[in-house]
């Protein structure tokens, strides 16, 4: 008998693609997608359940279908997506707590894969050049999505202690980038005038959207207990990325950066929260040895190539519009 996988956050781009990818896999017989809103188009091979992970209905769904693997991709990155910071926090933190409670009550669950973010390491001048999974953040994130992710990880660790029979894999992703995915960072790079922090040039690391989904698949198919950094090889400097994208920049002193950034981004898609500003000031890079060795996953795209795939697609789109 094949496996039954439950995926949260399927109505968003990555979750939807992930669910479809898993459904196409011969080892997996059933994929159940969960989200609060229905996906724009039906996801091939996936049973969609409209449920809010913030309430206990989710436990019933999991029990009835005897789910054995849970992929948690429901953590939301920007308040815009959720319709406000407080809703976002509730979905991220309370939602995760409910989901974990349901997992704990469902005996059939064998593995849990959580999509987290490298933002849990924070960023600042005291950071080492590359973070390994066991390093404590030197500048703990104090707000927004990074802080939510820290809390989510704490609950996930608690769950791992209470259900030692479940294999728990936490994947800390570098920023997703690619031709189709839309994040706060792709919105930032798409601004007509890209603000940078005066006197700073952060190192950035990306993971191509295809690689990111592949990494989750690898973790679902051969569960490995533990936390793994997931990023493409190498780093690019922000200045270099902007030159590659052929964008105009404006250097802004760090104190004014948030204000200027929000003015330049009328849609509000680009993120100029304090944590995002710290990242755009100091940057961050990950040590991915555990990803290669233990998880056995090698991204096909380097950081640089992943970024170029975004730039090319972006240029093509602009030509279409014209």
């Amino acid at each position: 008998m094949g496996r039954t996988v439950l995926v949260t956050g399927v109505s968003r781009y990555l979750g939807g693609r992930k669910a479809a990818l898993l459904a196409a896999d011969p080892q997996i017989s059933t994929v159940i997608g969960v989200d609060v809103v229905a996906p724009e188009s039906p996801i091939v091979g996936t049973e969609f359940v409209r449920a809010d992970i913030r309430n206990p209905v989710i436990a019933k769904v999991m029990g009835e279908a005897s789910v054995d693997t849970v992929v948690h991709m429901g953590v939301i990155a920007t308040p815009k997506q959720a319709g406000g910071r407080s809703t976002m926090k509730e979905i991220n933190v309370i939602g995760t707590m409910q989901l974990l409670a349901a997992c704990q009550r469902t005996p059939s669950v064998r593995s849990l894969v959580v999509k987290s973010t490298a933002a849990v390491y924070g960023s600042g001048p005291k950071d080492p050049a590359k973070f390994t999974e066991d390093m404590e953040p030197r500048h703990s994130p104090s707000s927004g999505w990074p802080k939510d992710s820290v809390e989510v990880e704490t609950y996930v660790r608690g769950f791992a202690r209470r259900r030692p029979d479940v294999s728990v894999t936490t994947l800390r992703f570098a920023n997703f980038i690619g031709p189709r995915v839309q994040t706060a960072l792709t919105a930032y790079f798409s601004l007509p005038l890209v603000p940078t922090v005066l006197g700073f040039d952060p190192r950035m690391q990306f993971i191509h959207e295809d690689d990111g989904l592949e990494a989750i698949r690898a973790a679902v198919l051969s569960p490995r207990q533990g936390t793994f950094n997931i990023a493409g090889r190498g780093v690019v400097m922000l200045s270099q990325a902007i030159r590659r994208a052929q964008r105009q920049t404006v250097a802004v002193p760090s104190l004014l950066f948030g204000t200027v950034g929000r003015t330049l981004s009328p849609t509000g898609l680009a993120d100029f929260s304090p944590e995002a500003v710290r990242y755009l000031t100091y940057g961050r890079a990950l040590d991915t040895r555990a990803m290669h060795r233990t998880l056995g996953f090698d991204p096909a795209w380097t950081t640089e190539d992943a970024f170029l795939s975004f730039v090319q697609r972006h240029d093509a789109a602009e030509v279409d519009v014209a």
Partner: protein
Amino acid sequence: MPDADVIPFASPGDPDRAGGAVGPSKAARLVGNTGPQPASPTVPPASASPAVPAVRARRSTDAPDVPVPVASEPHEVITDAEIPLDGEGWLEFARRRISGDYSVDDFGFDPELTDRVLLTLVRPLYRSWFRVETTGLENVPSASGALVVANHSGVIALDSVMAQVALHDEHPAHRHLRMLGANLVFQTPFMGEVARKAGHTLACHPDAERLLAAGEIVGVWPEGFKGVGKPFGQRYKLQRFGRGGFVSAALRTGAPIIPTAIVGAEEIYPMIGNAKTIARIFGLPYFPITPTFPWFGPLGLIPLPSKWMIHFGEPIRTDHFPEGAADDPMVVFNLTDQVREQIQQSLYRLLVKRPSAFG
């Protein structure tokens, strides 16, 4: 002038290897600049030949991630970075820089920018202003990792910059010095940015070990701000050597420690006072008062043209210690003392050899 109170009590048991090496170095300088030195970084030479294909070997920027440990690879990095220097015109270089078509390593080190721009900017200081004489380069390995430990002085850390020029220009393998700096460096606008691009990183265990394991030459200045910001009266007196963190990093990776003495930096900004209140307001470790600064405004920032000597000393091996020595405080303290002592002796020898502070 300032050398009078220095009493070298070391017996000159050390063969005059340093003195011997001065010869060729001096001669090399008399011959003139080695390699093509464009007059200005912005003006491309007329002979910029587009016929020469800009073969740019893409180097793997992720060496530390690859499970294969250590050795030879970082050396390739340097040779690769050298290729465009000879084969590519400035115009082509500028074009690639503007389109972002270059690579940096995981630390943000930009070898191209460093070789072609940053080092070019400071080279006149090294050659003409401070007339640096560098000796003992044979003690610095050509292909493997090593930890260069040196004394720190001079109010602003020009001594580390000069050591970087010395290793790049005068060492046969043109090695890049990857320095470990205080977090203040990386939180200061512009300074942090340039430091990263020039190959430097935060002074912390993981970074030191990562660089050493990758076979890089790592530079540390264990006196830190106590060294750079010390009053002129204490010149050439080594301050306390931090907590010896650099020694355990070397022990963990088995990299040799190269005690290095730098003479000359003490006289560039003779610090006769320290405005502690101003320093506190700006969050600085010290605020220097020199005979020219702040009295003459920006003019006071011009360093005095002292005569410099850099000596890379005999390496201290760390690979013969038993496993776990890095966690044995006694071993670490003893090694730290040995390094400190060797640098102090070397400083005295160089001072005796130097004709005068500005000679």
